């Protein structure tokens, strides 16, 4: 007993350093644990690097080479020159040539092109006669950022480029009129563009996290061992874990869209039923991806980090924050692999452009493909044993 008593005061005395000693012990422990968690460690490096690269290289707020279509009602040298001049501004890149108004409207509605130029029949002759005919440039203005700068550059640049071609020598007098038509969002309100995009962004974030934690939670709480010892198959576990959240996501989507319509005055021009069906598809796709993450990671922290890793490029590369068409090709390919990219096109098209199923075929199929891919990976990754 006396020995213990004699030790006590010296411990007491050293307690001036106690704060540092204990803090150091804690700090050391945290470092060791951090080093053991390889995935978290990798994320510490990956997240900032990825963000920097995406912001630095992929994002362009004054997008160029925007996909455009041309409706050629006549084939004339002047028409060709105008198109060439537009391409020379570097804002436009003519990817499609159509011959009917329906095709022209379809391309704009499905989001395959952002601009459409119509060269009317008898255009060249009218210019020669000095009739000042109209050249129609229709823009998809759902994203005001993407459309704005290109439209602004249109007038003066085309004219300058045409000077030597027409030999008018009289710059202020335009030989024809450029009539721009900002479709779907004529007031260039960014709210109209952002609200539908937010539906997808919010759903991505919440849905991913719901299921990303689901399998790791079972493992961390120790319930996985008894679950695996019972007669249940990986697909059954997956459906059981995804389906409740489809309902949750549906309620969430309804809430966001209702607020968008009621408070922000965003219209729903298209079919509400189609919007509901495709939103459900998007919700399920995200839940499947989240579930796939949870079959890959080892703990809940890693699950959260992996969700972040997926969420960040979703925001940056989907066309939500920055114009999709303005990104370099490699970034566009990355973007095509994200469900949010396709859903943002779908939701903007249905709400703002009144698009139909036929317009949205590609994006719908892409969402289904991504969902099936995620589910397949999840089911094959799901460990039926504790090996």
């Amino acid at each position, binding site marked *: 007993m006396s020995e213990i008593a004699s030790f006590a005061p010296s411990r007491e005395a050293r307690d001036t350093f106690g704060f540092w000693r204990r803090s150091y012990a804690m700090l050391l422990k945290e470092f060791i644990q951090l080093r053991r968690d390889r995935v978290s460690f990798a994320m510490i490096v990956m997240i900032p690097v990825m963000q920097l690269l995406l912001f630095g290289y992929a994002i362009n707020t004054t997008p160029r080479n925007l996909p455009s279509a041309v409706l050629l009602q006549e084939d004339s040298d002047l028409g060709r020159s105008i198109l060439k001049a537009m391409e020379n501004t570097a804002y436009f890149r003519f990817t499609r040539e159509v011959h009917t108004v329906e095709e022209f409207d379809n391309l704009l509605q499905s989001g395959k092109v952002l601009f459409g130029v119509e060269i009317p029949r008898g255009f060249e002759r009218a210019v020669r006669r000095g009739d000042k005919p109209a050249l129609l440039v229709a823009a998809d203005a759902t994203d005001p950022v993407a459309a704005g700068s290109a439209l602004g550059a249109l007038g003066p640049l085309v004219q300058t480029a045409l000077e030597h071609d027409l030999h008018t020598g009289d710059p202020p007098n335009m030989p024809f009129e450029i009539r721009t038509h900002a479709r779907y969002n004529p007031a260039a309100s960014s709210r109209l563009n952002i609200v539908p995009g937010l539906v997808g962004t919010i759903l991505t974030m919440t849905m991913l996290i719901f299921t990303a934690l689901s399998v790791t939670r079972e493992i961390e709480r*120790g*319930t*996985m*061992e*008894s679950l695996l*010892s*019972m*007669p249940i198959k990986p697909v059954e576990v997956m459906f059981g874990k995804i389906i409740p959240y489809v309902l949750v996501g549906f309620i969430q989507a309804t809430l966001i869209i209702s607020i968008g319509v009621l408070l922000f005055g965003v219209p729903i021009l298209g079919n509400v039923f189609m919007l509901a069906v495709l939103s459900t598809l998007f919700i399920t796709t995200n839940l499947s991806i989240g579930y796939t993450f949870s079959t890959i990671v080892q703990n809940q922290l890693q699950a959260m980090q992996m969700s972040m890793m997926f969420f960040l490029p979703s925001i940056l590369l989907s066309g939500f924050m920055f114009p999709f068409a303005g990104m370099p090709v490699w970034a566009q390919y990355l973007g095509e692999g994200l469900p949010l990219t396709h859903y943002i096109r779908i939701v903007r098209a249905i709400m703002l452009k009144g698009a139909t199923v036929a317009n949205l075929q590609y994006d719908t199929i892409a969402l289904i493909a991504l969902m099936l891919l995620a589910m397949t990976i999840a089911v094959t990754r799901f460990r*039926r044993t*504790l090996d």
Partner: protein
Amino acid sequence: MNNGSPSAQDIAIDVKGLTKKFGDRAVVQNLSMQVKRGSIYGFLGPNGSGKTTTIRMLCGLLTPDSGSGTCLGYDIRRDADKIKLRVGYMTQRFSLYQDLSVRENLEFVARLYGLQNPRGAARDMISRLGLSGREEQLAGELSGGWKQRLALGACTLPSPQLLLLDEPTAGVDPKARRDFWNEIHALAAEGLTVLVSTHYMDEAERCHEIAYIAYGNLLAHGTVEEVIAHSALSTWNVTGDDLNPLAAELDGKPGVDMVAPFGTSLHVCGRDQAALERTIAPYRESGKWHWQKSEPSLEDVFIDLMNRSKDNFQ
């Protein structure tokens, strides 16, 4: 120790040469065992000896690296799904859903096994477990003893033919342990085969047969009497004063393999009877202590097996 060769019908578990490695470390090595239907088979061994790994291989949760065998007549490698339908596995750590109530946990299990009337089955089990009135309590809020009972109830709910219990009574009070074992005997009497791992010697003595596993190797098996007899361990029980110095003095002397204090007495054991008796002769003659030749306890046998296996496998 094997009483002839029983027909396949009478054997619930029959495995040969099971080996499981995690990395380079063999957790279970060349393990063979047979468990008769309707018997309670005790699975003993120190921590990390491979008991849990063996049980997991038996119910298809782990794939053996080599070896083969059957569980209830189904191949443990190929027929894991069929085995899962007929085996109840109670994990070492409580693995029911803490945030579900007693009733919800049981109904979940009943539905997974496709029972006709999950609600009815859960209700019956709740009254069998004596949990009536607590069915809406969350499983996480139950005391340790009740959790164990609930876990046992959950794995017997689908009427399995074989129960695999991994240290079911660890950290449970003696009364709850006794109730638990009474329940296990009642289940065995109904024809269920039970494989139960434990650290407790009194529980081992409640088993029809026991097996001792250390460092992945099955070292002894048979009835308790057979295991004790087979150990050929000579044991002396010493009583008197100053046992601690005596223990220190005897430890490590020729013929003395183990010295262990048991309350007011000391167990001195040795495999080489002649050498042991030569060593203790002077102490016996001193008259200071009372020496009595006795049967080794099961614990003596196991500690001895463990010490010996350490020499062989570490």
